């Protein structure tokens, strides 16, 4: 029998464990449908805010010599209301709605906008490293994390995921706050604060000067975080950070992830990457005699 790629995160069951990460591509339902057909188990939207945000001027994204990408797009998004209207016709794409805000009321306002949309889960962006007063600045404040998670949980009957990153507070404390407040899953990690300077023009390349590093260079760091979280907490994890091959995906699953998210890899290989990674995982499972993803989750932690 063929192994099953199906995976469960709390009450959410996905047919495949490969998910489009937040910030990548997520502003059009047509694109979501295309990626779902290409093999994505789910898609995470761009992080949505109460009002539309334009983001920063370009340059906002470029690749780093030697590998990886640095971006400071600045959370550009059409705002929760416009976005909800855009995805309202959705029927069968598992859409995980990512939300970003500064206080509980921001999240309360946005959740209300999605009440009549088919949402698979909410992911709370507690970790964007390049926009003031949201993202990491919220994630670093564990009391605020607790309040926001409790608020969203009280309003939502789909899983609530907390996306954490490496800020100035020990990220495990942020995870602890989210888990204690009732979060159903954790996504780890976001991009890591970074920059690049061009020596010819003697200026930072990003208009925002500082942004977030993604792609292959952060994979070992992200993997370590997933391993640490799964060792300390009994909670489903979305592994995220530099995944570009089936082998990377399997590494994260063995470290304790129930599913993986990726996006930077699409700068080099476009939507074919979903089926490539899915097929690779399937072949690995066949070769190793696994019939479910569940059998592999956290297997690297055995003594």
């Amino acid at each position, binding site marked *: 029998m063929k192994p099953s790629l199906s995976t469960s995160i709390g009450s959410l069951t996905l047919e495949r464990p490969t998910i489009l990460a937040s*910030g*990548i*591509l*997520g*502003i*059009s339902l*047509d*694109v979501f*449908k*295309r990626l779902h057909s290409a093999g994505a188990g789910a898609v995470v939207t*761009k992080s949505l805010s109460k009002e*539309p*945000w*334009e*983001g920063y*001027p*370009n*340059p*906002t*994204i*470029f*690749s*780093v*010599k030697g590998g990886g*990408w640095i*971006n400071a*797009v600045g959370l*550009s*998004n*059409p*705002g929760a209301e*416009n976005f909800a209207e855009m995805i309202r016709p959705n029927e069968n794409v598992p859409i995980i709605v990512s939300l970003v805000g500064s206080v509980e009321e921001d999240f309360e306002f946005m959740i209300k906008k999605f009440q009549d949309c088919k949402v698979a889960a909410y992911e709370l962006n507690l970790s964007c490293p390049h926009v003031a007063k949201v993202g990491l600045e919220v994630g670093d404040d564990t009391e605020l994390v607790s309040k926001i998670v409790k608020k969203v949980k009280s309003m939502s009957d789909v899983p609530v995921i907390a996306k954490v990153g490496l800020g100035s507070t020990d990220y495990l404390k942020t995870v602890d706050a989210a888990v204690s407040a009732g979060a159903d899953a954790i996504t780890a990690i976001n991009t890591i604060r970074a920059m690049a300077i*061009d020596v*010819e*023009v003697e*200026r930072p*390349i990003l*208009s925002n000067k500082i942004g977030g590093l993604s792609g292959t260079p952060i994979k070992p760091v992200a993997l370590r975080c997933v391993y640490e979280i799964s060792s300390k907490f009994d909670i489903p994890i979305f592994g995220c950070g530099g995944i570009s091959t089936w082998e990377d995906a399997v590494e994260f699953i063995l470290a304790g992830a129930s599913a993986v998210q990726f*996006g*930077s890899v*699409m*700068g080099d290989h*476009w939507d074919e990457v979903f089926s490539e990674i899915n097929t690779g995982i399937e072949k690995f499972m066949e070769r190793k005699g696994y019939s479910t993803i569940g059998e592999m989750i956290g297997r690297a932690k055995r003594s």
Partner: protein
Amino acid sequence: MEEQRDPNHPHICTIERVVDETPTVRTLYFHDPVLGKIGDVEPGNFAMVWIPGVNELPMSIMVSEKDDQAGFTVRKRGISSTGLYNLKVGDKIGVRGPYGNSFDIKDGKILLIGGGTGLVPLMRLITWSSGRNQITLLMGSKTKDEVFFEEIAKKLKQGMYAGHADLTIIPVTEDGSYGEKGYVTDVLEKLLEENKYDAIYTCGPELMMYKVVKLANEKGIFVQASLERMMKCGVGICGSCCVGQDLACRDGTVFDGEYLAKSSEFGHFQRTKSGILEKI
């Protein structure tokens, strides 16, 4: 040969020559052994152009007579395009790319329809079809002052950039102050009544292209248009430039007319910086 460079990291180039095309349009030629090879950059390809301290813009890559040189033709409008427009010889810009797909050049008799800076990819298309095609070029502008690239088109005809081109050049001005009078699409309608074309390629204002695509589709002629959209990454990860399920940067910028005819966005909507669809 310089070492293999990362196409997604800004490569710094120096402006070598600035040409005033009209009172508001300039071409800035820069040294670059990669973008400056006519045969290596396909018609329709674009680059992300970093103007340090200002912004980064998607720009179609203009051909140059000189080896290892390419250009960007810019109309000053907002702060960013004016920032590029104001650069001088010796100033530095960063380029990423080339990105995007290209026009699918059919054999036979082809018609090119360009408006304003949309003529840039069509100039390159001529270098690629020299010696292969019988080409007619319609160059649209408002008035005589706004006509540009006619001299370059004549040089292309004489084979000064690539081989000799079998090229008919038809300038069209809306006020009739130069060339044919009216919109390029008016002249197109007349041409379509009198001639048979194997393919039509267009780049320029979207409403012009919308009309071109409509007319060509009605006649059953193969047509392609190069679309302009808000772009940030240029490589298919930010999603800013999406048109339906496609990305202008990765699946385009060149799209088939048959496909565009079915699009609910082409000719009607484009996305803002925040990703909201707004009326064109």
